[in-house]
């Protein structure tokens, strides 16, 4: 099998009868970076480049499990790098339509055993079709219809999911509230301050903090008279002049810019 820059090049086959020149080439090698990432453990992670948009985590996982015979976990990212895997996951919000990016991507296959990577690198091709020669990936109208079916929700089922989710949410909230009420320091000496109660703190929002800071500044300013001394009046006049001049200059610059685009010839 050909190699390039340390990557092994294998074709990605979607059906048994597709000629190899018409298949995407996947570049793979063992994942290796200096900074250790717990999600992509050294020696057990296979790194794949140029994974086409329609390939799913599940289909890749199934393929490697059957071929390499070692359980694995597949994750995608748009490009290699820090936080890229998280970014890929970010689109997921509970109770909204799934919108996984449909793009070329890189894949990380984490095997449960160290031998996985080595064995995977021995493969001649990545075959995403079953024994009948049919592709395991859904695509085209079939896929869209499937997605449409999921798009129309079953109300009972949804209600059940909502109830479950809210239950756990309420529980979490309750716990947080409890923690706030109970104003005892924890092991490290921190006290949780909530919104309620005697010792309520203010919300750590930028707008709130900004308003507070502004208030202080305003308080100082209030004490000054603005139109009292001659120099103040003179200064305000001066400002006015500066303003006029500035406008004049700005307009001139505008003209300068316009002139470059030759917008003064009516015909």
């Amino acid at each position, binding site marked *: 099998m050909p190699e*390039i820059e340390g*990557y092994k*090049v294998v074709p990605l086959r*979607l059906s048994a009868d597709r*000629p*190899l*020149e*018409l298949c995407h*080439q996947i*570049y793979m090698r063992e994942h290796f970076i200096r900074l250790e990432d717990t999600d992509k453990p050294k020696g057990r992670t296979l790194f794949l480049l*140029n994974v*086409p*948009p*329609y390939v799913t985590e599940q289909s890749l996982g199934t393929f490697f499990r059957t071929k390499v015979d070692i359980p694995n976990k597949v994750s995608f990212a748009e490009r*290699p790098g820090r936080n890229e895997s998280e970014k890929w996951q970010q689109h997921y*919000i*509970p*109770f*909204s339509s799934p919108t996984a990016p*449909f*793009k*070329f991507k890189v894949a990380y296959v984490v095997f449960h055993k160290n031998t996985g990577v080595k064995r995977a690198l021995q493969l001649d091709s990545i075959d995403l079709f079953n024994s009948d020669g049919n*592709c395991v990936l859904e*695509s085209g*109208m*079939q896929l*869209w*219809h499937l997605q*449409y079916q999921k798009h*129309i929700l079953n*109300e009972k089922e*949804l*209600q059940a999911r*909502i109830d479950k*989710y*809210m239950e756990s*949410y309420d529980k979490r909230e309750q716990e947080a509230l409890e923690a706030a009420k109970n104003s005892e320091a924890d092991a490290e000496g921190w006290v949780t301050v909530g919104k309620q109660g005697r010792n309520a703190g203010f919300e750590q*929002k*930028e*707008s709130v*903090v900004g308003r507070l800071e502004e208030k202080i500044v305003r308080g100082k300013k209030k004490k000054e008279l603005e139109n009292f001394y001659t120099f103040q009046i003179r200064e305000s006049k001066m400002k006015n*002049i*500066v303003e006029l*001049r500035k*406008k*004049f200059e700005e*307009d*001139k*610059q*505008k*003209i*300068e*810019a316009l*002139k470059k*685009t030759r*917008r*003064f*010839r*009516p*015909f």
Partner: protein
Amino acid sequence: MLKIKRKASEELDSGAAEDSMIENGSSDNMDDEPSSDNDDGFSERSVSASPAKVSKKSRKELIPATKAKEKLSAEVNNTNKKNQSEKVKPPTLEEINELKETRNLFHSNLFRLQVKEMLTELKIKEKYNNYIYNWLENFKQFLNKLENQAQKEDMGNQVWLKKSQIKYPISLHNLHIQQQKVFQFQFIKPKISPYLIGASATQSLLGPKVTVDICISMPEECFQKENYLNLIYDQKRAYYLAYIANKLLNCAEFGSELTTEKLKFSYHNNNPLKPILEITPTPLSNCKTILADKLRILLFVAAEESSFKLSRFVPWNSNVRASIFGDDVEGSAVMATSNYNANVLFDLTMQRNQEMLHGIFDGRRNFQEGLVLLKVWLRQREFDVGFNGFTAHLLTMFVAYLYKQRKLHTNMSSYQVARTVWNQLAYSSWDEDGKGISLSDKSTDLANQPTLEQFHTYYDVVFVDVTGFFNMTANLNVELYHRVRLEAKLAVDMLNDMKLNSFHMLFMTKHPLYSQFDHMLKINKRDVVDQIMEIYATPADKYNFAGYVYPVLIKVVLGLLRKGLGERVRAILPIEKVVDAWNCTEKPPDCSRYCHLGIVLNPDKAFEVLDKGPESIDEGADDFRKFWGEKAQLRRFQDGSITESVVWASANDSLWKRRLVVRSIITHLLQHHFQLESKDFDYIAGELDISYRLTPVFKTERMHEKYKVEQDVDSEDTSLNVIRSFDDLARKLHALNELPLEIVSIAGISPVFRYSEPVPVLPQARMIGEEMYAMQVQRGVIQLGLSGKWPSDLGALRALKMAFYIQIANLLREKHNLKTKVTYDGILVLKQGYCFSIEMAHPKELALLKKEKSERGLTQYVDCEASIALEKRHYILPKVTGALHALYQGHSSFAGTVMIAKRWLSTQLIDDGLWPEECTELLIAAQYLKTPSKQITSSPQTGFIKFLQLLAGTDWRSELFLLNFNNAMNENAVADLEHRFSTERDTFPPLCIATSFDEHHMGNLWSSGSKPNINVLARVTLLARHSLDIIETALLSTMEFIKPGRIFVPPNNGYDLVIQLKPDMVSNSWAHEFGTSFTARSKPNWRLPLADSNFLQKAVQKLREAYSDFAAFFYNPHGGKEIALVWKPNLTNERDFKVNEVNGCALSSKIDGKVAVKKEILVEDFKFILKDLYLRIGTVDEVLSASRNALPADSKTAITTGSKVFNPKIGEKRYFSQAQMDNSETEVVGVKNNHIQSKTIKSKTISAKSKNISKKRRTKPLKAKKSKI
């Protein structure tokens, strides 16, 4: 000094209608330094009084930026820095004055600077003046050397003319003159040397082709007794001109280069009796500059004033007799030929008027430049064309008049001159009795000099010249005069509007006359014109215009239309084409012989279906019946009156039919009065409106019986039904008291709610089995009453939102028996055959999307892509929808304009993903908001033409489209935005639109860097130019108007690849279809798709998401059945292996260690992604020919294989019965992939070599599924 000026400027500020600035500028001394750079025609202060140091500075600032660019910018930086760091320099009196003056006078310096800049651009270069001077000198010498002819010769017997190559430039035949008295002609050389007239005399020459008019005086000795009669003067004038032209050839002064090719004749103002000689300049012996394509010299011959008595040509005299037309002389009274007389007087009074102009314009740069401004304004509006036009000469004379009236002062700036002229023109009424104006001195009352009253009886418009005999507006069409007056008024309004920088609107943008018409009537067939002239033109008119057909025809037709249309129209304007100059060796061409009228509707009255006449017993009833013929009916009205009336349509007809009422009236009138059938004339109105009408192929009678729809409806009509149904749904939602929180607001956000959906929405949505089917889904947004209990976790919030959806869906089902479905994106509701999707907006959701932790550990709210999209959809779009809906209420043509525009874009394969729909809506809305309401068209077609003009003519980089709805943004905010736009242009998208609802996303909300990107923008501009060109030529020519298909069928060239889709997978659009140039026509498919599915759109979206780095995808969202594709340039270049740049790459077969993108692999991807949706892929030609060759018989050979067969969801039977079976097998056309090495092909299924693939089509036995019906 200062006080006076302040006062003056304050007056101005208050917006007084009278021009108070005439008191202004007492110390202006612009004549002092005619050549200095500072002399820009504006009143500028002399700087003598101030301290030298400071004056130096202010001087520097005045130097035009062209000369001192770098200096200036350097200085700007300097002063800015100084302002910040050091003390501010004390301003001088002059500086304050100047700054204040410009602010008050021009509202902003910008306007002043722009005008100044334009004037410098327009200034004619010195070499032109040099050349003109030299040419004139040579010409004088030439005339001096000419000899008088020895004796008189009979007119038909001019020996020199017979010998000469030059043809006599008047054709009496064209004027239907049959009998001519013999007269004699003798050339006598002019006694007065030739002089400049027109623009060059007033130093107001305008490019790009500079025209210099020179007048030659024809001495009185050339004329004999009674030469004033029967066009003899005009003929002699033409002989004189031809004689000079003949002598010019090969004369010593101009050398051998002046050949017959450089001499042309043309008609002065399209007047066939007034030929002029047009000379292409040749290098002169003393001036070698070559200006051939930039300059032309016109020689005009005019008789000396003393040739005839001026009183010979008073309006009531007859100088053209019936006899020359071969008409019966007996019994016909002598008829006044006032217009002919005026045309002769034009020549006779030439010299005196010119002298007067010299006295006023010479040496006054401000007047000259003011005139230039006015001429630019006039020319951009095309009022100065032809026989009936409002010429620049009239403007010049008006400036002179105002000067004499002391309305204009010598020390006014050019801006003030223009402004005063507009102001005076706007409030003039030269067409009303006693209100005409005269340049002549009342004191020297000559015998027989007509009074103003007398002028008014003979002419529509009166503006008398300096002699008191000649009405310069004799030929001016009164409607055109009104239009010019209106434009002048608008100009003043624009200048007064502080918020508007009117420069572009006034001077830079073209407002072609044709784009102001709502409808157009064209009568130009030769026999039809002759018939009208023969039967309906009065002899009086014929003699008056000396046999010239055009003005008579216009008068006859216009008179009829005016009477019949009354208040329905604002104006009926003749539109004339200039007769091209012809070579002097050819016979003169026929002059205008057509009647092209543009009709400007009055939207308040034009669409009324009934014309009420007088009561049946009134005197007028008889006339009324006669005028309207059998159309007149006696009707009784609700108020009890019984009157004669004409009915044009039924009261509840849809708007598009009522828009054509005026057409019906005109057709009827022409038929009734002139016996014209509809094939005899062209009436252009609403041809393109068909693009948003329901396609005739779709038969509404087959529809569900419950909801009846007329067959001939358009999208505007159906929108109203949708909105009504939605309002009803809104009422029901409001009344859902069982909800824990009340629904407080409901707003539509789909285009249909702002009348911008070009595809008719029919009440067809339905449940079939458990599935919901609908062609379109209309979306609305609801908001709930306030509550503090919403969770501050995004997941929990969305969970609660979904719970609300379920509850609302249940309630609607139970209480109102509506079909509902819940999705994550909203509740789908079926109501009265429409499908609505209701989603809920919640401010907290927006806030949670924005939530971030800052580095200080504080929670902050930062806009992200998702939050902006949500804010736009849930909060801004409803507001904009409301505003646009309101705009439509005010101007009903808005809807149609947007619909045509959207259809045009979609048929050009520009869909929402390339060019957001809202951009089209907002661009047109911006245009409507900017146009003064009197000029807003009431016909969608014209609105669309204006939209094309906008697309074709806009400099996207420098233009910001700001829609300040209800003036919600104050001046500062606008100025701030504009400033940011000009200084930080690159932070805004290529097409920049902002509305007053956009909050802090100003300019970046409706478009983005990728939507539309620069390429799409450029393409749309190009397409618009092309379409506009087609429309413009069709409108102005004498040809029939184009078939709409010509601009609604996209060109198919330029695309690399076409993916043809299966016709039965993509439903046709309900809008009128124009066909496609990509595939052969297929049977329409009216199958209802699953509600809210739109698989094609989704497919293209996916393709774009994944492959936009490789190719651009195009499709027509309104029923288009193909996706066209253009590869990115340099896509397949070999490149180094880089981890971040290997997407889609395979190892290069040519160079080791390099990779390259392979198109054929990507094509396989497309096939995979579009499985079951595409029919074939190939180049444009391949797909086209394959689709043509695909015979229905082929389908029988299709083999069904494969384990999984895709089974499309089946709609109701009757919608399937039309579905097409014959194309349901998938074909694959090989892509042009010559470089695939055929040896390496292993696969069994590809048996042919790759080179053959491209030619031989292969039936890929993927699947073929016939539906079971």
